């Protein structure tokens, strides 16, 4: 049974923020499945090379310039919005991965990598999106939580 669904717009103003999307589980369940996707993943902006070069130059020591090849090896740049799950305000886990389309499951007996097994008990839950990298003006994220 679907217990939460949202289409979320993550903008550059959300960069380096944790965006919380609470939902209530009305009754105990066997487990929760979270389906999560966002796009775009790759940033294709014309300033990509300049942004990457600036990052290299901020880290390289004086007198050593990054090569064009080194900078180009980091292109295209990526948007990155990681998903965490909370129950009653307590972190259950984080999926710090670079794929932009994933499914995670938690139950009392097992959980997807990154998450701690926990009973899908009735109460207050939240999906939290952590905006590690937002290069496009707008990223569209889709969240769907199903209780079984």
């Amino acid at each position, binding site marked *: 049974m679907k217990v939460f669904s949202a289409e979320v717009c993550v903008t550059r103003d959300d960069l380096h923020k944790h965006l919380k999307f609470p939902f209530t589980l009305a009754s105990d369940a066997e487990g929760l499945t979270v389906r999560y996707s966002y796009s775009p993943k790759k940033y294709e902006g014309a300033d990509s090379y300049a942004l990457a070069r600036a990052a290299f130059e901020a880290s390289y020591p004086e007198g050593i310039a990054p090569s064009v090849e080194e900078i180009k090896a980091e292109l295209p*740049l990526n948007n990155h919005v990681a998903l965490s799950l909370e129950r009653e305000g307590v972190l259950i886990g984080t999926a*710090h991965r*670079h794929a932009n389309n994933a499914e995670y499951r938690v139950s009392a007996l097992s959980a997807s990598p990154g998450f701690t097994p926990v009973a899908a008990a009735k109460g207050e839950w939240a999906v939290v999106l952590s905006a590690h990298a937002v290069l496009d003006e707008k990223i569209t994220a889709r969240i769907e939580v199903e209780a079984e």
Partner: protein
Amino acid sequence: MNGNDKAVYYPFELHCHTLHSDGAFTPRELAEAAKARGLKGIALTDHNTSTGVAEAVRVGRELGITVIPGIEWTTFYGHITVLGGHSDVDWRTVSPATAAEKIRRAVSLGDVAILAHPYRVGYPVCTGGKSEFPDEIFDVLTGYEVYSGVLSDPTNLRARDEYLSLTSAGKKLAAVYGRDWHGQGTDIGYGVTLLGISGTPNAENALEAIRAGRTAVADCNGNIIVKTPFTA
């Protein structure tokens, strides 16, 4: 080394990832790769989760590889590896304003905290890759990744210079290497951390070696590149 005659120095890799975050290894594959590489132990430091630790510890026992429980606080402003598995800090609460307090909390609970790749190429190539934490963290951290990834990476020169400057100024920071190991690949160009362990080379004694400054960064042949200039 460092005048501690009882310590035996073992090679460790203190910065590793599995598929519990963005690594390609399963915990078993990581432990097997560590054994194949001749390491005595590893710290499992997945990004913002420690859910792979139980399996890694179990496999480590089977293979004779010491596994130190850990996590990498992968924040927007810098990355910190926290080793020991005692901390209750939620990584999302770590910011430039709170970093020192959160590190102090983790250390007070029995963990060691190490600033990871302080000068890695940062945002937007690697968010938080370059530390933006304030200098006050150097009063509470246990260690500093003087070298990260490929030893010849130019950003390591800045980290090395900062480490030497900090320790010259009296900061008690153990010298640590972090491969930031995410999966199989060539072993050429990487290093190890040598830990001077007194007694059985288990996780707690490995942590004690870091706290005591019985550490050195070495290349893969064991040649020391930089060692901690103090002992506790």
